[in-house]
Protein backbone atom coordinates (compact mmCIF):
# COMPACT_ATOMS: atom_id res chain seq x y z
CA UNK A 1 0.00 0.00 0.00
CA UNK A 2 1.38 3.28 -1.08
CA UNK A 3 1.81 5.97 1.49
CA UNK A 4 0.71 9.51 0.89
CA UNK A 5 3.08 12.12 -0.38
CA UNK A 6 3.43 14.24 2.76
CA UNK A 7 6.14 15.91 4.78
CA UNK A 8 7.09 13.84 7.83
CA UNK A 9 6.32 16.47 10.43
CA UNK A 10 4.54 16.38 13.74
CA UNK A 11 1.98 18.86 12.41
CA UNK A 12 1.18 16.67 9.43
CA UNK A 13 0.92 13.61 11.64
CA UNK A 14 -1.62 15.11 13.99
CA UNK A 15 -3.64 16.28 10.99
CA UNK A 16 -3.57 12.77 9.54
CA UNK A 17 -4.56 11.27 12.87
CA UNK A 18 -7.61 13.49 12.95
CA UNK A 19 -8.48 12.46 9.40
CA UNK A 20 -8.05 8.82 10.26
CA UNK A 21 -10.45 9.22 13.17
CA UNK A 22 -13.03 10.83 10.88
CA UNK A 23 -12.53 8.12 8.28
CA UNK A 24 -13.05 5.42 10.89
CA UNK A 25 -16.19 7.04 12.19
CA UNK A 26 -17.51 7.53 8.64
CA UNK A 27 -16.72 3.93 7.83
CA UNK A 28 -18.63 2.69 10.85
CA UNK A 29 -21.68 4.78 10.05
CA UNK A 30 -21.70 3.84 6.37
CA UNK A 31 -21.39 0.20 7.30
CA UNK A 32 -24.39 0.51 9.59
CA UNK A 33 -26.28 2.25 6.83
CA UNK A 34 -25.41 -0.47 4.37
CA UNK A 35 -26.47 -3.24 6.72
CA UNK A 36 -29.80 -1.63 7.49
CA UNK A 37 -30.48 -0.85 3.83
CA UNK A 38 -29.64 -4.40 2.94
CA UNK A 39 -32.01 -5.80 5.55
CA UNK A 40 -34.88 -3.65 4.34
CA UNK A 41 -34.04 -4.34 0.71
CA UNK A 42 -34.07 -8.10 1.15
CA UNK A 43 -37.42 -7.92 2.91
CA UNK A 44 -38.87 -5.70 0.20
CA UNK A 45 -37.52 -7.68 -2.69
CA UNK A 46 -38.93 -10.93 -1.37
CA UNK A 47 -42.34 -9.36 -0.97
CA UNK A 48 -41.95 -7.85 -4.42
CA UNK A 49 -41.21 -11.23 -5.93
CA UNK A 50 -44.35 -12.71 -4.39
CA UNK A 51 -46.48 -9.83 -5.60
CA UNK A 52 -45.04 -10.02 -9.10
CA UNK A 53 -45.80 -13.70 -9.39
CA UNK A 54 -49.33 -13.02 -8.22
CA UNK A 55 -49.84 -10.10 -10.60
CA UNK A 56 -48.45 -12.01 -13.55
CA UNK A 57 -50.83 -14.84 -12.87
CA UNK A 58 -53.78 -12.49 -12.54
CA UNK A 59 -52.84 -10.66 -15.70
CA UNK A 60 -52.72 -13.82 -17.71
CA UNK A 61 -56.20 -14.62 -16.38
CA UNK A 62 -57.33 -11.17 -17.50
CA UNK A 63 -55.88 -11.80 -20.91
CA UNK A 64 -57.77 -15.06 -21.09
CA UNK A 65 -60.96 -13.18 -20.25
CA UNK A 66 -60.29 -10.70 -23.01
CA UNK A 67 -59.65 -13.48 -25.46
CA UNK A 68 -63.00 -15.00 -24.49
CA UNK A 69 -64.64 -11.65 -25.00
CA UNK A 70 -63.09 -11.14 -28.40
CA UNK A 71 -64.23 -14.61 -29.38
CA UNK A 72 -67.89 -13.79 -28.89
CA UNK A 73 -67.83 -10.19 -30.02
CA UNK A 74 -66.72 -8.57 -33.21
CA UNK A 75 -63.45 -6.75 -33.08
CA UNK A 76 -65.01 -3.40 -33.89
CA UNK A 77 -67.59 -3.56 -31.12
CA UNK A 78 -64.97 -4.71 -28.66
CA UNK A 79 -62.57 -1.93 -29.53
CA UNK A 80 -65.20 0.78 -29.55
CA UNK A 81 -66.64 -0.46 -26.26
CA UNK A 82 -63.30 -0.12 -24.57
CA UNK A 83 -62.36 3.12 -26.24
CA UNK A 84 -64.33 5.63 -24.22
CA UNK A 85 -63.26 5.32 -20.65
CA UNK A 86 -65.26 7.12 -18.05
CA UNK A 87 -62.74 7.02 -15.33
CA UNK A 88 -59.23 8.25 -15.22
CA UNK A 89 -57.18 6.58 -12.53
CA UNK A 90 -54.96 9.13 -10.91
CA UNK A 91 -52.30 8.42 -8.36
CA UNK A 92 -51.13 10.73 -5.68
CA UNK A 93 -47.35 10.59 -5.54
CA UNK A 94 -45.76 11.05 -2.15
CA UNK A 95 -42.31 10.08 -1.13
CA UNK A 96 -40.97 8.19 1.82
CA UNK A 97 -37.44 8.26 3.13
CA UNK A 98 -35.83 4.91 3.81
CA UNK A 99 -32.27 5.41 5.09
CA UNK A 100 -31.79 8.54 2.96
CA UNK A 101 -33.28 6.92 -0.15
CA UNK A 102 -36.36 8.70 -1.44
CA UNK A 103 -38.84 6.07 -2.51
CA UNK A 104 -42.24 6.86 -4.00
CA UNK A 105 -45.55 6.07 -2.33
CA UNK A 106 -48.51 5.82 -4.67
CA UNK A 107 -52.05 6.40 -3.51
CA UNK A 108 -54.86 5.77 -5.90
CA UNK A 109 -57.34 8.55 -6.41
CA UNK A 110 -60.05 7.35 -8.71
CA UNK A 111 -61.88 9.97 -10.69
CA UNK A 112 -65.22 8.22 -10.69
CA UNK A 113 -66.83 8.22 -7.27
CA UNK A 114 -68.86 5.06 -7.76
CA UNK A 115 -66.89 1.86 -7.22
CA UNK A 116 -69.16 -0.17 -9.47
CA UNK A 117 -68.99 2.37 -12.22
CA UNK A 118 -66.11 0.81 -14.07
CA UNK A 119 -67.69 -0.25 -17.32
CA UNK A 120 -67.17 2.32 -20.03
CA UNK A 121 -69.94 0.95 -22.25
CA UNK A 122 -73.62 0.17 -22.23
CA UNK A 123 -74.55 -3.41 -21.62
CA UNK A 124 -76.88 -3.70 -24.61
CA UNK A 125 -74.42 -4.67 -27.30
CA UNK A 126 -71.66 -6.28 -25.34
CA UNK A 127 -71.26 -9.73 -23.94
CA UNK A 128 -70.86 -10.64 -20.31
CA UNK A 129 -67.43 -12.03 -21.07
CA UNK A 130 -66.29 -8.49 -21.60
CA UNK A 131 -67.75 -7.47 -18.24
CA UNK A 132 -65.77 -10.27 -16.66
CA UNK A 133 -62.61 -9.16 -18.38
CA UNK A 134 -62.93 -5.53 -17.37
CA UNK A 135 -63.86 -6.26 -13.79
CA UNK A 136 -61.00 -8.73 -13.42
CA UNK A 137 -58.62 -6.13 -14.75
CA UNK A 138 -60.05 -3.61 -12.34
CA UNK A 139 -59.33 -5.97 -9.51
CA UNK A 140 -55.70 -6.32 -10.52
CA UNK A 141 -55.23 -2.57 -10.67
CA UNK A 142 -54.46 -1.94 -6.97
CA UNK A 143 -51.93 -4.76 -7.05
CA UNK A 144 -50.39 -3.32 -10.19
CA UNK A 145 -49.91 0.05 -8.52
CA UNK A 146 -48.49 -1.59 -5.42
CA UNK A 147 -46.12 -3.55 -7.63
CA UNK A 148 -44.98 -0.39 -9.37
CA UNK A 149 -44.28 1.23 -6.03
CA UNK A 150 -42.32 -1.75 -4.76
CA UNK A 151 -40.28 -2.30 -7.86
CA UNK A 152 -39.29 1.33 -8.05
CA UNK A 153 -38.31 1.25 -4.37
CA UNK A 154 -36.23 -1.86 -4.96
CA UNK A 155 -34.57 -0.27 -7.95
CA UNK A 156 -33.66 2.88 -6.02
CA UNK A 157 -32.50 0.96 -2.97
CA UNK A 158 -30.36 -1.40 -5.01
CA UNK A 159 -28.57 1.58 -6.54
CA UNK A 160 -28.07 3.19 -3.15
CA UNK A 161 -26.77 -0.03 -1.61
CA UNK A 162 -24.28 -0.41 -4.41
CA UNK A 163 -23.03 3.13 -3.88
CA UNK A 164 -22.80 2.71 -0.11
CA UNK A 165 -21.01 -0.60 -0.47
CA UNK A 166 -18.43 0.98 -2.73
CA UNK A 167 -17.85 3.76 -0.24
CA UNK A 168 -17.52 1.33 2.65
CA UNK A 169 -15.07 -0.79 0.72
CA UNK A 170 -12.98 2.13 -0.42
CA UNK A 171 -12.76 3.43 3.15
CA UNK A 172 -12.04 0.02 4.58
CA UNK A 173 -9.50 -1.22 2.07
CA UNK A 174 -7.93 1.94 0.67
CA UNK A 175 -8.36 5.07 2.71
CA UNK A 176 -7.93 3.76 6.24
CA UNK A 177 -4.87 1.55 5.52
CA UNK A 178 -3.30 4.42 3.66
CA UNK A 179 -3.78 6.77 6.59
CA UNK A 180 -2.43 4.17 8.98
CA UNK A 181 0.65 3.50 6.94
CA UNK A 182 1.38 7.17 6.42
CA UNK A 183 1.07 7.84 10.12
CA UNK A 184 3.37 4.94 10.85
CA UNK A 185 5.85 6.20 8.28
CA UNK A 186 5.84 9.68 9.82
CA UNK A 187 6.26 8.41 13.36
CA UNK A 188 9.17 6.18 12.30
CA UNK A 189 10.77 9.04 10.50
CA UNK A 190 10.38 11.30 13.52
CA UNK A 191 11.89 8.71 15.83
CA UNK A 192 14.74 8.24 13.43
CA UNK A 193 15.37 11.98 13.40
CA UNK A 194 15.22 11.98 17.15
CA UNK A 195 17.81 9.26 17.46
CA UNK A 196 20.13 10.82 14.96
CA UNK A 197 20.02 14.18 16.68
CA UNK A 198 20.60 12.51 20.05
CA UNK A 199 23.71 10.69 18.86
CA UNK A 200 24.95 13.88 17.30
CA UNK A 201 24.49 15.72 20.59
CA UNK A 202 26.34 12.99 22.49
CA UNK A 203 29.18 13.17 20.05
CA UNK A 204 29.33 16.94 20.27
CA UNK A 205 29.28 16.74 24.06
CA UNK A 206 32.19 14.31 24.00
CA UNK A 207 34.14 16.57 21.72
CA UNK A 208 33.47 19.62 23.88
CA UNK A 209 34.43 17.81 27.07
CA UNK A 210 37.60 16.62 25.51
CA UNK A 211 38.50 20.11 24.45
CA UNK A 212 37.82 21.54 27.92
CA UNK A 213 39.64 18.95 30.02
CA UNK A 214 42.08 17.50 27.53
CA UNK A 215 41.20 13.93 28.54
CA UNK A 216 43.36 12.36 25.90
CA UNK A 217 46.47 14.28 27.06
CA UNK A 218 45.92 13.23 30.67
CA UNK A 219 45.43 9.64 29.72
CA UNK A 220 48.68 9.63 27.89
CA UNK A 221 50.69 11.10 30.73
Amino acid at each position, binding site marked *: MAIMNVNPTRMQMSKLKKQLLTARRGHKMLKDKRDELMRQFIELVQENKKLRDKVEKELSECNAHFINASAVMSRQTLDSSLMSSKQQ*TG*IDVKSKNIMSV*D*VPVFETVSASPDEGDIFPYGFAFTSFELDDAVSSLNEVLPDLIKLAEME*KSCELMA*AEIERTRRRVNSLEHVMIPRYEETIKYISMKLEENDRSSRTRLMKVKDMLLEKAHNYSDKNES
Partner: protein
Amino acid sequence: MVKNIAIIGDSESVKGFGAVGIDAFVCDEIESAVSLFKKVTNQERYAVIFMTEEIFSAAQREINKLTEMTVPAVIPLPGARGNNGIGSKRLSAFVEQAVGSDILFK
Protein backbone atom coordinates in the same frame (compact mmCIF):
# COMPACT_ATOMS: atom_id res chain seq x y z
CA MET B 1 -49.14 15.85 -6.80
CA VAL B 2 -51.62 13.73 -8.73
CA LYS B 3 -50.30 11.93 -11.75
CA ASN B 4 -51.60 9.30 -14.11
CA ILE B 5 -50.70 5.82 -15.23
CA ALA B 6 -49.72 4.84 -18.74
CA ILE B 7 -49.23 1.55 -20.47
CA ILE B 8 -47.29 0.99 -23.66
CA GLY B 9 -47.68 -2.23 -25.57
CA ASP B 10 -49.14 -4.02 -28.54
CA SER B 11 -52.82 -3.39 -29.19
CA GLU B 12 -53.78 -6.88 -28.07
CA SER B 13 -52.22 -6.42 -24.64
CA VAL B 14 -53.21 -2.87 -23.80
CA LYS B 15 -56.75 -2.56 -25.04
CA GLY B 16 -58.41 -3.52 -21.78
CA PHE B 17 -56.41 -1.07 -19.72
CA GLY B 18 -58.11 1.92 -21.28
CA ALA B 19 -61.33 0.81 -19.63
CA VAL B 20 -59.92 0.91 -16.11
CA GLY B 21 -58.54 4.41 -16.36
CA ILE B 22 -55.03 3.80 -17.57
CA ASP B 23 -53.82 5.73 -20.60
CA ALA B 24 -53.01 3.10 -23.18
CA PHE B 25 -50.47 3.79 -25.90
CA VAL B 26 -50.49 1.29 -28.71
CA CYS B 27 -47.13 0.34 -30.09
CA ASP B 28 -47.33 -2.50 -32.56
CA GLU B 29 -43.91 -2.04 -34.15
CA ILE B 30 -40.92 -2.54 -31.90
CA GLU B 31 -39.02 0.11 -33.90
CA SER B 32 -41.28 2.91 -32.74
CA ALA B 33 -41.02 1.88 -29.08
CA VAL B 34 -38.21 4.27 -28.21
CA SER B 35 -39.81 7.35 -29.75
CA LEU B 36 -43.16 6.55 -28.18
CA PHE B 37 -41.53 6.02 -24.81
CA LYS B 38 -39.78 9.39 -25.10
CA LYS B 39 -43.07 11.02 -25.99
CA VAL B 40 -44.76 9.51 -22.95
CA THR B 41 -42.01 10.41 -20.51
CA ASN B 42 -41.61 13.95 -21.83
CA GLN B 43 -45.07 14.93 -20.69
CA GLU B 44 -44.17 14.17 -17.08
CA ARG B 45 -47.82 13.39 -16.48
CA TYR B 46 -47.24 9.80 -15.61
CA ALA B 47 -46.01 8.44 -12.32
CA VAL B 48 -46.17 4.84 -13.45
CA ILE B 49 -45.48 3.58 -16.95
CA PHE B 50 -46.23 -0.06 -17.54
CA MET B 51 -44.72 -1.67 -20.60
CA THR B 52 -45.11 -5.05 -22.17
CA GLU B 53 -41.95 -7.07 -21.99
CA GLU B 54 -41.07 -6.83 -25.68
CA ILE B 55 -41.36 -3.05 -25.65
CA PHE B 56 -39.51 -2.87 -22.36
CA SER B 57 -36.48 -4.67 -23.69
CA ALA B 58 -36.55 -2.60 -26.88
CA ALA B 59 -36.45 0.69 -24.97
CA GLN B 60 -34.09 -0.55 -22.29
CA ARG B 61 -31.49 2.12 -22.89
CA GLU B 62 -33.95 4.99 -22.54
CA ILE B 63 -35.44 3.40 -19.45
CA ASN B 64 -32.07 3.13 -17.77
CA LYS B 65 -31.75 6.90 -17.92
CA LEU B 66 -34.69 7.20 -15.52
CA THR B 67 -33.34 4.75 -12.97
CA GLU B 68 -32.18 7.41 -10.53
CA MET B 69 -35.42 9.38 -10.50
CA THR B 70 -38.20 8.71 -7.99
CA VAL B 71 -40.89 9.00 -10.65
CA PRO B 72 -41.78 7.69 -13.18
CA ALA B 73 -41.62 4.04 -12.25
CA VAL B 74 -41.19 2.00 -15.40
CA ILE B 75 -42.44 -1.53 -14.87
CA PRO B 76 -42.44 -4.44 -17.32
CA LEU B 77 -45.57 -6.60 -17.46
CA PRO B 78 -46.26 -9.75 -19.43
CA GLY B 79 -48.34 -8.99 -22.51
CA ALA B 80 -50.95 -11.03 -24.31
CA ARG B 81 -48.22 -13.03 -26.01
CA GLY B 82 -47.15 -14.56 -22.75
CA ASN B 83 -44.49 -14.15 -20.16
CA ASN B 84 -40.83 -14.23 -21.03
CA GLY B 85 -39.58 -13.63 -17.51
CA ILE B 86 -38.09 -10.17 -17.89
CA GLY B 87 -39.83 -9.02 -14.71
CA SER B 88 -38.29 -11.72 -12.57
CA LYS B 89 -34.92 -11.27 -14.23
CA ARG B 90 -35.10 -7.61 -13.38
CA LEU B 91 -35.66 -8.42 -9.72
CA SER B 92 -32.71 -10.81 -9.74
CA ALA B 93 -30.62 -8.06 -11.29
CA PHE B 94 -31.54 -5.74 -8.42
CA VAL B 95 -30.47 -8.33 -5.89
CA GLU B 96 -27.27 -8.88 -7.77
CA GLN B 97 -26.56 -5.18 -7.91
CA ALA B 98 -27.18 -4.74 -4.20
CA VAL B 99 -25.67 -7.88 -2.74
CA GLY B 100 -23.06 -8.77 -5.33
CA SER B 101 -24.60 -12.06 -6.33
CA ASP B 102 -28.11 -13.37 -6.69
CA ILE B 103 -28.68 -15.02 -3.35
CA LEU B 104 -32.46 -15.10 -3.35
CA PHE B 105 -33.97 -16.28 -6.61
CA LYS B 106 -31.59 -18.84 -7.98
